[in-house]
């Protein structure tokens, strides 16, 4: 309790010099930070799940057998054609994923969080499958032929020759996908997750004069997040770029 009062006084002191509405934003910074944490956690978990399912799916669409290809394509079309809010309603209300995988009993996350990660992750997997399909197909057919000619099996040729080149070419598309997932986390309000955007709405309902200030503040946060990550991916892209023909 003493600590709480101390922290409160500190916050008040830091925010004191600001105009009233910015003071309000400043005083609620910790509440917004909680939403930011949830947004970041949702994005990372969903992107990872999307990669884990999307990369193999993309490879199957390029190299798979007829039936495997057909199955992956159908699932992909359904996922890409369904609005994210409907996917959430399915993973939370209709076929609650946590009923089969009660991860939320082990990890400190809510059942809504798990449903949101599965929803965003599956949708991202469908997008990422297309992204990786494109970059796999962009690798010249001669690369494959050359790899087979030196005695690699088809699987080894894909793994050691095509995939390393395709992954490097997929970075720009991946930047796009990251940004989409980050922004779509805000739809999780539909199943009761209070991430960054939801919390900002709660704040400007509470202090209706501070609409502009709250929106500017969270826009800045979203901008820093997307800009920072995109710059980092740019670096990665340059570091691992396929050397130009000399």
């Amino acid at each position, binding site marked *: 309790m003493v600590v709480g009062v101390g922290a409160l006084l500190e916050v008040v002191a830091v925010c004191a010099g600001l105009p009233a509405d910015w003071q309000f934003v400043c005083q609620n910074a910790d509440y917004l930070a909680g939403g930011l944490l949830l947004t970041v956690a949702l994005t990372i978990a969903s992107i990872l799940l999307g990669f884990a399912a999307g990369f193999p799916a993309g490879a199957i669409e390029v190299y798979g057998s007829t039936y495997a290809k057909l199955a992956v394509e159908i699932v992909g079309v359904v996922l890409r054609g369904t609005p994210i809010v409907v996917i959430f309603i399915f993973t939370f209300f*209709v076929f609650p994923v946590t009923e089969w995988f009660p991860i939320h009993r082990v990890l400190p996350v809510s*059942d809504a969080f798990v449903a949101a990660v599965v929803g965003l992750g599956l949708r991202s997997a469908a997008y990422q499958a297309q992204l990786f399909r494109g970059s796999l197909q962009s690798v010249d057919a001669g690369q494959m032929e050359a790899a087979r000619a030196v005695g690699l099996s088809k699987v080894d040729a894909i793994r050691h020759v095509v995939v390393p080149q395709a992954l490097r070419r997929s970075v720009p598309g991946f930047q796009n996908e990251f940004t989409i997932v980050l922004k779509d986390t805000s739809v999780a309000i*539909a199943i009761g997750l209070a991430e960054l955007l939801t*919390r900002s709405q*709660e*704040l400007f*309902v*509470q202090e*209706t004069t501070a609409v502009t200030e709250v929106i500017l503040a969270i826009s800045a946060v979203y901008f820093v997040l997307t800009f920072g990550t995109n710059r980092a991916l740019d670096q990665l892209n340059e570091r691992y770029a396929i050397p130009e023909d000399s």
Partner: protein
Amino acid sequence: MSRRFSMDRRSYLKVAGVASTAGLAGCLSSFGAGGDQEIVAGTAPGFPPFEMKEGGDLVGFDIDLLEAVVEETDYELTEWREFEFSSLIPALTNENIDVVAAAMTINDERDETIDFTDPYYNADQAILVREDGSFSPGSLDDLSGHAVGAQEGTTGASVVDEELVQSGDLEESNFKTYGSYVLAVEDLVNENLDAVVVDTPVANTFEAQRPVTIAFTYETGERYGFGLREDADDMTSALNDGLAAVQDSGEYEEIRNEWFSEA
């Protein structure tokens, strides 16, 4: 029809239908929702003074009233869950929650899917204008030729649409809808709008907080009720008894005075 049930939300209704069918077919257990005597309540914060978040805590008239009503019964209110307004009915039919307390207007469309308690609040529509402005309409007709705003899917929006736009009294380009009535009022204060149509209790809150004033009210006679599943007859009648008890004991007055003191 208090708020947020616009055309593009129809997909929700369809999904809600699918969801409830799946639920009835026994595909779902009562995962998450309380046991026999426990009640998990659901709401959609962001509708002051009925329900909103303050410093991260859920507060408001609906919150206090439902807690007082349940107190009068043998049930126990164990948890509040928050959803978007349009997710509340799917959450209810899928047993994620047992009761909806969210300033939900009792109407036929909703009554087909869920049950309601006896009404606990009456609301009309208020026409808000700038406090220091020269525009002071006295009836809906006075709004023609002026920029009018409302929140998407609310009764206020349908009043403007049905009474003014469809009859040609107001040009469509002069009618603007917003995702949140907070933004509509923001535009009113910024002089981009001349009037905003919202539920009376919410208009009172704005009148106390912003430089706006209620020019006149338009009677629609909406009644808010708590929403329950259709098979939950015991709970419905218990809550109705609880509501009557709270109203008789004067506790209802106390709670109302606390949240509508500006009115």
